[in-house]
Protein backbone atom coordinates (compact mmCIF):
# COMPACT_ATOMS: atom_id res chain seq x y z
CA UNK A 1 0.00 0.00 0.00
CA UNK A 2 1.11 3.52 -0.72
CA UNK A 3 -0.01 5.39 2.37
CA UNK A 4 -0.41 3.10 5.29
CA UNK A 5 -1.66 4.11 8.70
CA UNK A 6 -1.33 1.56 11.46
CA UNK A 7 -2.71 1.62 14.99
CA UNK A 8 -2.61 5.37 15.45
CA UNK A 9 -3.55 6.64 18.91
CA UNK A 10 -3.57 10.28 19.98
CA UNK A 11 -4.67 12.03 23.15
CA UNK A 12 -4.72 15.68 24.05
CA UNK A 13 -4.50 17.15 27.54
CA UNK A 14 -7.84 18.44 28.78
CA UNK A 15 -8.46 20.95 31.55
CA UNK A 16 -11.08 19.01 33.49
CA UNK A 17 -10.74 15.42 32.37
CA UNK A 18 -6.95 15.18 32.34
CA UNK A 19 -6.55 13.73 28.87
CA UNK A 20 -9.01 13.16 26.07
CA UNK A 21 -8.47 10.47 23.50
CA UNK A 22 -9.11 11.87 20.04
CA UNK A 23 -7.92 9.00 17.89
CA UNK A 24 -8.34 5.38 18.86
CA UNK A 25 -6.53 2.75 16.90
CA UNK A 26 -6.81 4.04 13.36
CA UNK A 27 -5.88 1.61 10.58
CA UNK A 28 -6.16 2.86 7.05
CA UNK A 29 -4.63 2.05 3.69
CA UNK A 30 -4.63 4.37 0.71
CA UNK A 31 -3.50 3.51 -2.80
CA UNK A 32 -1.33 5.79 -4.89
CA UNK A 33 -3.39 8.28 -6.83
CA UNK A 34 -6.53 7.58 -4.85
CA UNK A 35 -8.97 10.30 -3.81
CA UNK A 36 -9.92 9.53 -0.22
CA UNK A 37 -12.36 11.47 1.91
CA UNK A 38 -12.84 11.38 5.65
CA UNK A 39 -16.26 12.42 6.91
CA UNK A 40 -17.27 12.75 10.50
CA UNK A 41 -18.95 15.07 12.98
CA UNK A 42 -17.02 18.01 14.34
CA UNK A 43 -14.49 17.09 16.97
CA UNK A 44 -14.04 13.51 15.75
CA UNK A 45 -10.32 13.91 15.21
CA UNK A 46 -10.35 13.92 11.43
CA UNK A 47 -8.26 17.09 11.24
CA UNK A 48 -5.86 15.65 13.80
CA UNK A 49 -5.48 12.60 11.58
CA UNK A 50 -4.51 14.88 8.71
CA UNK A 51 -2.00 16.83 10.80
CA UNK A 52 -0.43 13.51 11.81
CA UNK A 53 0.03 12.54 8.19
CA UNK A 54 1.41 16.01 7.48
CA UNK A 55 3.84 15.55 10.34
CA UNK A 56 2.60 18.70 12.08
CA UNK A 57 1.58 16.64 15.13
CA UNK A 58 3.04 13.51 16.66
CA UNK A 59 1.04 10.37 17.41
CA UNK A 60 1.20 8.73 20.84
CA UNK A 61 1.54 5.33 19.23
CA UNK A 62 1.19 3.67 15.86
CA UNK A 63 2.91 4.48 12.61
CA UNK A 64 2.28 6.24 9.34
CA UNK A 65 4.34 5.33 6.33
CA UNK A 66 4.41 6.49 2.76
CA UNK A 67 5.87 4.15 0.20
CA UNK A 68 7.46 2.27 3.05
CA UNK A 69 9.12 5.34 4.61
CA UNK A 70 7.90 6.26 8.04
CA UNK A 71 6.66 9.82 8.58
CA UNK A 72 8.68 11.56 11.28
CA UNK A 73 8.11 15.25 10.62
CA UNK A 74 6.63 17.70 8.15
CA UNK A 75 7.93 17.62 4.62
CA UNK A 76 7.12 19.07 1.25
CA UNK A 77 6.10 15.68 -0.13
CA UNK A 78 2.87 16.07 1.86
CA UNK A 79 1.44 19.56 1.54
CA UNK A 80 -1.65 20.75 3.37
CA UNK A 81 -4.44 22.96 2.03
CA UNK A 82 -6.22 24.43 5.04
CA UNK A 83 -9.80 25.59 5.49
CA UNK A 84 -8.72 29.19 5.49
CA UNK A 85 -6.32 29.77 2.65
CA UNK A 86 -3.57 30.96 5.01
CA UNK A 87 -1.81 33.03 2.37
CA UNK A 88 0.92 35.26 3.73
CA UNK A 89 -0.52 38.79 3.55
CA UNK A 90 2.95 40.36 3.20
CA UNK A 91 3.70 38.49 -0.03
CA UNK A 92 2.16 38.83 -3.47
CA UNK A 93 0.24 35.93 -4.96
CA UNK A 94 3.30 34.93 -6.97
CA UNK A 95 5.62 35.10 -3.96
CA UNK A 96 3.18 33.04 -1.95
CA UNK A 97 3.26 30.30 -4.56
CA UNK A 98 7.04 30.37 -5.00
CA UNK A 99 7.60 30.28 -1.22
CA UNK A 100 7.88 26.50 -1.04
CA UNK A 101 9.84 26.18 -4.28
CA UNK A 102 12.52 28.63 -3.14
CA UNK A 103 12.75 26.61 0.05
CA UNK A 104 13.60 23.62 -2.13
CA UNK A 105 16.52 25.72 -3.44
CA UNK A 106 15.00 26.07 -6.88
CA UNK A 107 16.43 29.04 -8.84
CA UNK A 108 14.14 32.06 -8.65
CA UNK A 109 13.49 32.27 -12.40
CA UNK A 110 12.51 28.65 -12.66
CA UNK A 111 10.33 28.86 -9.53
CA UNK A 112 8.47 31.87 -10.86
CA UNK A 113 7.90 30.22 -14.19
CA UNK A 114 6.49 27.15 -12.52
CA UNK A 115 4.33 29.21 -10.18
CA UNK A 116 2.86 31.21 -13.06
CA UNK A 117 2.06 28.00 -14.89
CA UNK A 118 0.31 26.63 -11.84
CA UNK A 119 -1.57 29.89 -11.24
CA UNK A 120 -2.79 29.71 -14.82
CA UNK A 121 -4.01 26.20 -14.17
CA UNK A 122 -6.22 27.50 -11.35
CA UNK A 123 -7.28 30.38 -13.63
CA UNK A 124 -5.52 33.15 -11.72
CA UNK A 125 -3.00 34.13 -14.40
CA UNK A 126 -4.14 37.75 -14.18
CA UNK A 127 -3.58 38.09 -10.46
CA UNK A 128 0.04 37.11 -9.99
CA UNK A 129 1.08 40.52 -8.66
CA UNK A 130 -1.94 41.09 -6.43
CA UNK A 131 -1.85 40.87 -2.67
CA UNK A 132 -4.04 38.27 -0.96
CA UNK A 133 -6.46 40.82 0.50
CA UNK A 134 -7.42 41.88 -3.02
CA UNK A 135 -8.78 38.41 -3.80
CA UNK A 136 -12.15 36.83 -3.01
CA UNK A 137 -12.41 33.80 -0.73
CA UNK A 138 -12.60 31.39 -3.65
CA UNK A 139 -9.60 32.97 -5.37
CA UNK A 140 -7.56 32.77 -2.18
CA UNK A 141 -8.34 29.09 -1.92
CA UNK A 142 -7.23 28.62 -5.54
CA UNK A 143 -3.91 30.27 -4.73
CA UNK A 144 -3.60 28.02 -1.72
CA UNK A 145 -4.22 24.96 -3.92
CA UNK A 146 -1.70 26.26 -6.47
CA UNK A 147 0.84 26.82 -3.69
CA UNK A 148 0.42 23.19 -2.61
CA UNK A 149 0.39 21.67 -6.09
CA UNK A 150 3.42 23.54 -7.34
CA UNK A 151 5.46 21.55 -4.82
CA UNK A 152 4.46 18.41 -6.75
CA UNK A 153 3.58 16.62 -3.54
CA UNK A 154 3.01 12.87 -3.41
CA UNK A 155 -0.01 13.45 -1.24
CA UNK A 156 -2.25 16.50 -1.19
CA UNK A 157 -3.78 16.88 2.26
CA UNK A 158 -6.94 18.98 2.28
CA UNK A 159 -8.52 20.04 5.56
CA UNK A 160 -12.09 21.14 4.77
CA UNK A 161 -10.72 23.37 2.03
CA UNK A 162 -14.08 24.50 0.68
CA UNK A 163 -16.05 24.73 3.93
CA UNK A 164 -15.83 28.52 4.17
CA UNK A 165 -16.86 29.16 0.56
CA UNK A 166 -20.27 29.86 -0.90
CA UNK A 167 -22.16 27.13 -2.73
CA UNK A 168 -21.44 28.31 -6.29
CA UNK A 169 -17.73 28.80 -5.73
CA UNK A 170 -17.54 25.42 -4.06
CA UNK A 171 -19.23 23.73 -7.01
CA UNK A 172 -16.78 25.26 -9.46
CA UNK A 173 -13.82 24.31 -7.30
CA UNK A 174 -15.09 20.73 -6.95
CA UNK A 175 -15.05 20.39 -10.70
CA UNK A 176 -11.63 21.99 -11.02
CA UNK A 177 -10.16 19.92 -8.21
CA UNK A 178 -11.23 16.74 -9.97
CA UNK A 179 -9.71 17.98 -13.23
CA UNK A 180 -6.44 18.79 -11.50
CA UNK A 181 -6.47 15.44 -9.71
CA UNK A 182 -6.91 13.58 -13.01
CA UNK A 183 -4.22 15.67 -14.65
CA UNK A 184 -1.60 15.42 -11.90
CA UNK A 185 -2.52 11.92 -10.59
CA UNK A 186 -1.77 13.17 -7.07
CA UNK A 187 -3.07 11.21 -4.08
CA UNK A 188 -5.69 13.31 -2.30
CA UNK A 189 -6.57 12.97 1.36
CA UNK A 190 -9.66 15.11 1.80
CA UNK A 191 -11.29 16.01 5.13
CA UNK A 192 -14.86 17.25 5.14
CA UNK A 193 -18.03 17.26 7.22
CA UNK A 194 -20.10 17.56 4.06
CA UNK A 195 -21.31 14.10 3.00
CA UNK A 196 -22.40 15.30 -0.43
CA UNK A 197 -18.96 16.74 -1.05
CA UNK A 198 -17.30 13.46 -0.09
CA UNK A 199 -19.60 11.47 -2.32
CA UNK A 200 -19.18 13.82 -5.25
CA UNK A 201 -15.40 13.74 -5.22
CA UNK A 202 -13.91 10.63 -3.76
CA UNK A 203 -13.26 7.03 -4.64
CA UNK A 204 -13.04 5.96 -1.04
CA UNK A 205 -15.00 7.45 1.83
CA UNK A 206 -14.03 6.79 5.43
CA UNK A 207 -16.67 7.53 8.06
CA UNK A 208 -15.28 8.50 11.45
CA UNK A 209 -17.02 7.80 14.75
CA UNK A 210 -16.45 10.39 17.42
CA UNK A 211 -15.07 10.60 20.98
CA UNK A 212 -12.73 8.89 20.55
CA UNK A 213 -12.31 9.11 16.80
CA UNK A 214 -12.23 5.75 15.08
CA UNK A 215 -13.15 4.35 11.74
CA UNK A 216 -16.81 3.40 11.64
CA UNK A 217 -17.28 2.43 8.01
CA UNK A 218 -15.49 2.56 4.68
CA UNK A 219 -17.31 2.99 1.38
CA UNK A 220 -15.95 2.66 -2.12
CA UNK A 221 -17.33 4.46 -5.09
CA UNK A 222 -16.07 3.56 -8.49
CA UNK A 223 -18.17 5.91 -10.62
CA UNK A 224 -16.54 8.57 -12.72
CA UNK A 225 -17.43 11.96 -11.38
CA UNK A 226 -17.77 15.52 -12.57
CA UNK A 227 -17.93 17.00 -9.07
CA UNK A 228 -21.20 18.75 -9.75
CA UNK A 229 -24.18 16.46 -9.85
CA UNK A 230 -24.63 13.26 -7.92
CA UNK A 231 -26.17 10.28 -9.77
CA UNK A 232 -28.54 7.77 -8.20
CA UNK A 233 -25.77 5.54 -6.95
CA UNK A 234 -24.10 8.47 -5.24
CA UNK A 235 -27.38 9.58 -3.66
CA UNK A 236 -27.86 6.07 -2.36
CA UNK A 237 -24.34 6.16 -0.95
CA UNK A 238 -25.03 9.53 0.63
CA UNK A 239 -28.03 8.01 2.44
CA UNK A 240 -25.96 5.11 3.68
CA UNK A 241 -23.29 7.43 5.02
CA UNK A 242 -25.86 9.66 6.69
CA UNK A 243 -27.35 6.60 8.40
CA UNK A 244 -23.90 5.74 9.72
CA UNK A 245 -23.32 9.26 10.91
CA UNK A 246 -26.70 9.78 12.60
CA UNK A 247 -25.68 7.89 15.72
CA UNK A 248 -22.51 9.92 15.92
CA UNK A 249 -24.26 13.23 15.52
CA UNK A 250 -26.69 12.24 18.23
CA UNK A 251 -23.84 11.26 20.50
CA UNK A 252 -22.25 14.69 20.10
CA UNK A 253 -25.53 16.52 20.66
CA UNK A 254 -26.39 14.48 23.75
CA UNK A 255 -23.00 15.29 25.19
CA UNK A 256 -23.45 18.99 24.54
CA UNK A 257 -27.16 19.51 25.20
CA UNK A 258 -28.04 16.78 27.71
CA UNK A 259 -29.38 13.26 27.52
CA UNK A 260 -32.96 14.06 26.61
CA UNK A 261 -31.95 15.49 23.23
CA UNK A 262 -32.98 13.40 20.23
CA UNK A 263 -31.81 14.09 16.73
CA UNK A 264 -33.33 11.13 14.90
CA UNK A 265 -36.70 11.89 13.39
CA UNK A 266 -39.61 10.22 15.03
CA UNK A 267 -40.46 7.14 13.04
CA UNK A 268 -44.12 7.21 14.00
CA UNK A 269 -45.91 9.90 12.05
CA UNK A 270 -48.60 11.88 13.75
CA UNK A 271 -51.65 13.24 12.08
CA UNK A 272 -52.65 16.79 12.59
CA UNK A 273 -55.43 16.21 15.06
CA UNK A 274 -52.94 14.70 17.40
CA UNK A 275 -54.52 11.46 18.49
CA UNK A 276 -53.31 8.50 16.59
CA UNK A 277 -55.84 6.11 15.10
CA UNK A 278 -58.83 8.37 15.59
CA UNK A 279 -60.27 7.73 12.15
CA UNK A 280 -60.20 3.99 12.06
Amino acid at each position, binding site marked *: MYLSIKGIEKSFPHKEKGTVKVLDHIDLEVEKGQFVSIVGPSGCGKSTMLYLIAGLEKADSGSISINGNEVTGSGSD*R*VVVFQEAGLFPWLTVLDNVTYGLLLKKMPKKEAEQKAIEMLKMVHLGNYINSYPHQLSGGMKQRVSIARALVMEPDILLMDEPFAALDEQTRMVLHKELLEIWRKTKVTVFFITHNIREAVLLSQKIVVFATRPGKIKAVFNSKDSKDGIEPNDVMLQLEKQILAELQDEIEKVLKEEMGDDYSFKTNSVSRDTSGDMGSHI
Partner: protein
Amino acid sequence: MAIWEVTSRLSELPDFMFPSFTQVMSTLFSGLLSGQILIAIGASLSRLLIGFTIASVLGLILGYLIWRYKLVEDTLGFLVTALQSIPSIVWFPLAIIWFGLNDFAILFIVTLGATWTMIVNATSGFKNVPVLYQRVAKSLGSGGFHFLRTVILPASVPQLISGLRIAWAFSWRALMAGELLGASVGLGQLLEAGRALGQMDLVISVMIIIGVIGTIMDNVLFLRLERSVERKWGIRA
Protein backbone atom coordinates in the same frame (compact mmCIF):
# COMPACT_ATOMS: atom_id res chain seq x y z
CA MET B 1 0.55 83.21 17.85
CA ALA B 2 -1.13 86.60 17.66
CA ILE B 3 -2.51 86.12 21.16
CA TRP B 4 0.95 85.11 22.32
CA GLU B 5 2.48 88.20 20.72
CA VAL B 6 -0.14 90.51 22.21
CA THR B 7 -0.18 89.01 25.73
CA SER B 8 3.60 89.05 25.82
CA ARG B 9 3.73 92.72 24.88
CA LEU B 10 0.99 93.68 27.34
CA SER B 11 2.15 91.50 30.24
CA GLU B 12 4.15 92.99 33.04
CA LEU B 13 6.63 90.11 33.03
CA PRO B 14 10.02 91.15 31.71
CA ASP B 15 11.04 90.06 28.21
CA PHE B 16 13.48 87.42 29.37
CA MET B 17 10.72 85.61 31.29
CA PHE B 18 7.95 85.82 28.73
CA PRO B 19 9.48 86.63 25.34
CA SER B 20 7.25 87.58 22.44
CA PHE B 21 6.63 85.33 19.47
CA THR B 22 8.75 87.46 17.14
CA GLN B 23 11.63 87.45 19.58
CA VAL B 24 11.50 83.65 19.88
CA MET B 25 11.44 83.32 16.10
CA SER B 26 14.47 85.55 15.66
CA THR B 27 16.39 83.58 18.34
CA LEU B 28 15.34 80.36 16.62
CA PHE B 29 16.59 81.53 13.24
CA SER B 30 19.80 83.00 14.50
CA GLY B 31 20.39 79.84 16.51
CA LEU B 32 19.82 77.73 13.41
CA LEU B 33 22.03 80.00 11.31
CA SER B 34 24.88 80.16 13.79
CA GLY B 35 24.79 76.40 14.03
CA GLN B 36 24.29 76.36 17.79
CA ILE B 37 20.88 74.68 17.54
CA LEU B 38 21.91 72.48 14.61
CA ILE B 39 24.87 71.09 16.54
CA ALA B 40 22.59 70.42 19.49
CA ILE B 41 20.06 68.64 17.24
CA GLY B 42 22.84 66.55 15.72
CA ALA B 43 24.21 65.55 19.11
CA SER B 44 20.78 64.66 20.48
CA LEU B 45 19.67 62.72 17.43
CA SER B 46 22.88 60.72 17.21
CA ARG B 47 22.52 59.69 20.87
CA LEU B 48 18.92 58.80 20.23
CA LEU B 49 19.69 56.82 17.12
CA ILE B 50 22.40 54.78 18.81
CA GLY B 51 20.30 54.10 21.91
CA PHE B 52 17.20 53.35 19.89
CA THR B 53 19.01 50.95 17.58
CA ILE B 54 20.58 49.05 20.46
CA ALA B 55 17.18 48.90 22.18
CA SER B 56 15.43 47.62 19.05
CA VAL B 57 17.95 44.87 18.40
CA LEU B 58 18.07 43.91 22.07
CA GLY B 59 14.28 43.97 22.26
CA LEU B 60 13.94 41.67 19.25
CA ILE B 61 16.47 39.17 20.53
CA LEU B 62 15.12 39.05 24.09
CA GLY B 63 11.55 39.04 22.77
CA TYR B 64 12.46 36.04 20.65
CA LEU B 65 13.98 34.21 23.61
CA ILE B 66 10.93 34.90 25.77
CA TRP B 67 8.64 33.67 23.00
CA ARG B 68 10.72 30.61 22.30
CA TYR B 69 11.64 29.33 25.75
CA LYS B 70 9.18 28.88 28.58
CA LEU B 71 11.91 29.17 31.21
CA VAL B 72 13.01 32.58 29.90
CA GLU B 73 9.40 33.71 29.82
CA ASP B 74 8.81 32.74 33.45
CA THR B 75 11.95 34.50 34.65
CA LEU B 76 12.90 37.36 32.34
CA GLY B 77 9.35 37.91 31.08
CA PHE B 78 8.10 38.76 34.54
CA LEU B 79 11.09 40.93 35.31
CA VAL B 80 10.57 42.94 32.12
CA THR B 81 6.96 43.70 33.02
CA ALA B 82 8.10 44.97 36.39
CA LEU B 83 11.02 47.00 35.00
CA GLN B 84 8.85 48.48 32.29
CA SER B 85 6.91 50.45 34.87
CA ILE B 86 10.03 52.28 36.09
CA PRO B 87 10.54 55.54 34.15
CA SER B 88 14.02 55.28 32.73
CA ILE B 89 15.20 58.63 34.15
CA VAL B 90 14.94 56.98 37.57
CA TRP B 91 17.99 54.94 36.52
CA PHE B 92 20.03 58.10 36.01
CA PRO B 93 21.57 58.39 39.50
CA LEU B 94 22.69 54.78 39.19
CA ALA B 95 24.01 55.43 35.68
CA ILE B 96 26.03 58.42 36.89
CA ILE B 97 27.65 56.31 39.60
CA TRP B 98 28.41 53.51 37.15
CA PHE B 99 29.54 55.50 34.11
CA GLY B 100 30.10 59.04 35.41
CA LEU B 101 28.19 62.12 34.30
CA ASN B 102 28.82 61.68 30.58
CA ASP B 103 27.40 60.64 27.25
CA PHE B 104 27.50 57.03 28.24
CA ALA B 105 25.15 57.56 31.18
CA ILE B 106 22.67 59.33 28.90
CA LEU B 107 22.97 56.63 26.28
CA PHE B 108 22.29 54.07 28.99
CA ILE B 109 18.96 55.55 30.04
CA VAL B 110 17.92 56.25 26.45
CA THR B 111 18.53 52.59 25.59
CA LEU B 112 16.84 51.39 28.74
CA GLY B 113 13.81 53.58 28.10
CA ALA B 114 13.16 51.87 24.78
CA THR B 115 14.29 48.34 25.51
CA TRP B 116 11.52 47.19 27.86
CA THR B 117 8.65 48.25 25.60
CA MET B 118 10.45 46.79 22.62
CA ILE B 119 10.78 43.44 24.40
CA VAL B 120 7.15 43.44 25.46
CA ASN B 121 5.93 44.32 21.97
CA ALA B 122 8.23 41.89 20.20
CA THR B 123 7.13 39.07 22.50
CA SER B 124 3.45 39.72 22.02
CA GLY B 125 4.01 40.22 18.29
CA PHE B 126 5.68 36.82 17.99
CA LYS B 127 3.06 35.19 20.19
CA ASN B 128 0.23 36.51 18.06
CA VAL B 129 1.49 35.06 14.79
CA PRO B 130 -1.48 32.97 13.62
CA VAL B 131 -0.95 29.22 14.03
CA LEU B 132 -2.27 28.86 10.49
CA TYR B 133 0.72 30.71 8.98
CA GLN B 134 3.09 28.61 11.05
CA ARG B 135 1.44 25.39 9.94
CA VAL B 136 1.44 26.48 6.30
CA ALA B 137 5.15 27.27 6.40
CA LYS B 138 6.03 24.03 8.19
CA SER B 139 3.91 22.05 5.76
CA LEU B 140 5.85 23.61 2.88
CA GLY B 141 9.08 22.54 4.52
CA SER B 142 10.19 25.66 6.40
CA GLY B 143 11.97 25.49 9.73
CA GLY B 144 14.70 26.95 11.90
CA PHE B 145 16.06 30.37 10.99
CA HIS B 146 14.25 30.41 7.64
CA PHE B 147 10.95 29.97 9.51
CA LEU B 148 11.84 32.87 11.82
CA ARG B 149 12.91 35.13 8.96
CA THR B 150 10.09 34.42 6.51
CA VAL B 151 7.12 33.85 8.81
CA ILE B 152 7.51 34.95 12.42
CA LEU B 153 9.21 38.29 11.72
CA PRO B 154 7.09 39.50 8.79
CA ALA B 155 3.87 38.29 10.43
CA SER B 156 4.57 40.38 13.51
CA VAL B 157 5.59 43.52 11.59
CA PRO B 158 2.43 45.52 12.45
CA GLN B 159 2.99 45.00 16.17
CA LEU B 160 6.73 45.61 15.83
CA ILE B 161 6.08 48.98 14.21
CA SER B 162 3.77 50.08 16.99
CA GLY B 163 6.40 48.83 19.43
CA LEU B 164 9.06 50.93 17.70
CA ARG B 165 6.78 53.93 17.85
CA ILE B 166 6.24 53.66 21.59
CA ALA B 167 9.90 52.83 22.17
CA TRP B 168 10.87 55.92 20.19
CA ALA B 169 8.61 58.11 22.36
CA PHE B 170 10.06 56.66 25.56
CA SER B 171 13.66 57.07 24.49
CA TRP B 172 12.99 60.62 23.28
CA ARG B 173 11.64 61.56 26.70
CA ALA B 174 14.52 59.81 28.46
CA LEU B 175 16.99 61.62 26.21
CA MET B 176 15.62 65.07 27.04
CA ALA B 177 15.58 64.35 30.76
CA GLY B 178 19.09 62.95 30.64
CA GLU B 179 20.50 65.84 28.63
CA LEU B 180 18.82 68.36 30.89
CA LEU B 181 20.71 66.84 33.80
CA GLY B 182 24.10 66.23 32.35
CA ALA B 183 25.18 66.66 28.77
CA SER B 184 27.89 68.77 27.22
CA VAL B 185 25.96 69.32 23.99
CA GLY B 186 22.38 68.58 23.03
CA LEU B 187 18.91 70.02 22.98
CA GLY B 188 18.38 69.28 26.67
CA GLN B 189 21.64 70.99 27.52
CA LEU B 190 20.56 74.03 25.49
CA LEU B 191 17.37 74.18 27.55
CA GLU B 192 19.42 74.11 30.72
CA ALA B 193 21.77 76.78 29.35
CA GLY B 194 18.78 78.94 28.46
CA ARG B 195 17.48 78.64 31.99
CA ALA B 196 20.88 79.43 33.51
CA LEU B 197 21.34 82.49 31.31
CA GLY B 198 17.76 83.64 31.79
CA GLN B 199 17.07 83.37 28.06
CA MET B 200 13.51 82.13 27.80
CA ASP B 201 13.48 82.89 24.07
CA LEU B 202 16.16 80.22 23.66
CA VAL B 203 14.24 77.79 25.90
CA ILE B 204 11.05 78.22 23.90
CA SER B 205 12.98 77.92 20.62
CA VAL B 206 14.36 74.58 21.74
CA MET B 207 10.91 73.48 22.85
CA ILE B 208 9.64 74.24 19.37
CA ILE B 209 12.46 72.21 17.83
CA ILE B 210 11.71 69.28 20.14
CA GLY B 211 8.05 69.45 19.19
CA VAL B 212 8.83 69.57 15.49
CA ILE B 213 11.22 66.62 15.59
CA GLY B 214 8.78 64.60 17.68
CA THR B 215 5.95 65.30 15.26
CA ILE B 216 8.03 64.45 12.22
CA MET B 217 9.14 61.12 13.64
CA ASP B 218 5.82 60.10 15.09
CA ASN B 219 3.33 61.32 12.56
CA VAL B 220 5.37 61.26 9.41
CA LEU B 221 7.76 58.34 9.73
CA PHE B 222 5.98 55.84 11.97
CA LEU B 223 2.45 56.65 10.86
CA ARG B 224 3.47 56.32 7.21
CA LEU B 225 5.17 53.02 7.91
CA GLU B 226 2.07 51.78 9.69
CA ARG B 227 -0.23 52.95 6.92
CA SER B 228 1.83 51.37 4.18
CA VAL B 229 1.81 48.00 5.96
CA GLU B 230 -1.93 48.32 6.55
CA ARG B 231 -2.49 49.08 2.89
CA LYS B 232 -0.36 46.20 1.72
CA TRP B 233 -2.02 43.74 4.05
CA GLY B 234 -5.47 45.17 3.38
CA ILE B 235 -6.18 45.74 7.06
CA ARG B 236 -7.62 49.10 6.18
CA ALA B 237 -9.26 49.26 2.78
